[in-house]
């Protein structure tokens, strides 16, 4: 019997190696796998590359991981937040690398990684600082596009609303955001889910992320999102 449900946070985080690229989902606090991020802090892996939309808030979660010196580089679209003090201090003192990526390009680079596409062209960022040094090319429509490479992860940390033992997932409202894309882009996809449901409870037409993209599921009924 296939059973991707794990019983402890330690089991969920087992085997994450130093130097890993970790995709951390969420947009604001919504769809953000807080318990798994805390689990990663506990687990100890270091020299990480973090991929997330933001660069952490306050001194908790991703910001805490950075504060502990465990993140070598962050790839994100929006390093600002309501309280970005940890990132800004590290960045000003040269203790963290930053790669800023337009939000849609960030999402598509991970989608491409999950879909076996090593590179694609987009008009986003053409003629801006964020296209510096990148290959550009004109296509048949006469417009210039920049080539962007896929962004695969070693690990994805995902937050779901429902999950079953095959790893099928649903997401609630705007909690979907980066979750399905990161789930498909990583070698090891770890999910915290509000609810665990029986196989077959999610109608097959309405599975948002099929279990093929999921490796481990931890039941975390943690309530409403918090900590924007």
């Amino acid at each position: 019997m296939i059973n991707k449900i794990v019983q402890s946070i330690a089991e969920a985080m087992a085997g994450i190696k130093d130097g890993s690229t970790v995709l951390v989902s969420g947009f604001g606090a919504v769809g953000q796998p807080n318990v798994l991020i805390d689990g990663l802090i506990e687990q100890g892996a270091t020299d990480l590359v973090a991929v997330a939309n933001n660069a952490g808030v306050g001194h908790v979660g991703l910001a805490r991981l950075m504060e502990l010196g465990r993140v070598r580089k962050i790839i994100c679209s929006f390093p600002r937040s309501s309280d970005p003090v940890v990132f800004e201090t590290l960045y000003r003192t040269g203790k963290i690398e930053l790669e800023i990526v337009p939000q849609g390009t960030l999402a598509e680079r991970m989608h491409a990684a999950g879909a076996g596409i090593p590179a694609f062209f987009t008009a986003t960022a053409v003629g801006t600082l964020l296209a510096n040094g990148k290959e550009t090319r004109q296509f048949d429509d006469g417009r210039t596009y920049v080539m962007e490479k896929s962004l695969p992860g070693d690990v994805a940390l995902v937050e779901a609303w429902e999950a079953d033992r095959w790893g099928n997932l649903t997401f609630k409202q705007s909690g979907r955001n980066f979750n399905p894309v990161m789930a498909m882009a990583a070698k090891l996809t770890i999910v915290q889910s509000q609810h665990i449901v029986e196989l077959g409870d999610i109608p097959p037409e309405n599975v948002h992320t099929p279990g093929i993209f999921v490796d481990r599921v931890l039941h975390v009924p943690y309530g409403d999102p918090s900590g924007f």
Partner: protein
Amino acid sequence: MSDSAIADFKPLSRQQMAARVARDIPEGWYVNLGIGIPTQVADHVPLEREVIFHSENGVLGMGPAPAPDKIEPWLINAGKQYVTLRKGGSYVHHADSFAMIRGGHLDLCVLGGFQVAENGDLANWATSVNDTAPAVGGAMDLAAGAKRLWVLMEHTTKDGTSKIVHRCSYPLTAVGAVKRVYTNLATLDITPEGFAIVDMAPGLSFENLQARTEAKLRPAAA
């Protein structure tokens, strides 16, 4: 610029600016509103005029802000404010959401701006090449992807420097993308010949507007 010059006319309030943009959005358009004043445009589109608002974080068909006791904690917009979803709305993931943007499926995007140039260039994400860690978010995707890009911003900075310029001095968000600018002083179309005035704040003269504007303006077509 003398105080008397300012006394000649009444710049639009932010409310009025948002309402001015809202007036130009027809029923049936798919529209993304940027963070800041642009977000307020939605408040001025009556619900009966069905305009479908999109948010980068995978929300299509946003409605007004919820009553405080009706907040859905999982339903936010790109500005991380609580919103509602209209009947007929839907949720998608981030790659699908930006496919809508990049693929030219939005009829309109309204963004804030630092500078708009007469060649349609927009600068709205960083104020210097040396900005430590500027935050781009979805601005470049929206500016390059939407069918129409309008910018909604104050006409000048607080110290009176024009944000309507010949060429942008700040790092660009997108090249040649802006079609129209709404400011507290005027509505300007970007044409192959540069900025053309669509309308001006009540009481403002062409000369007075030009005096506050770095770029050369063309009077409204008669």
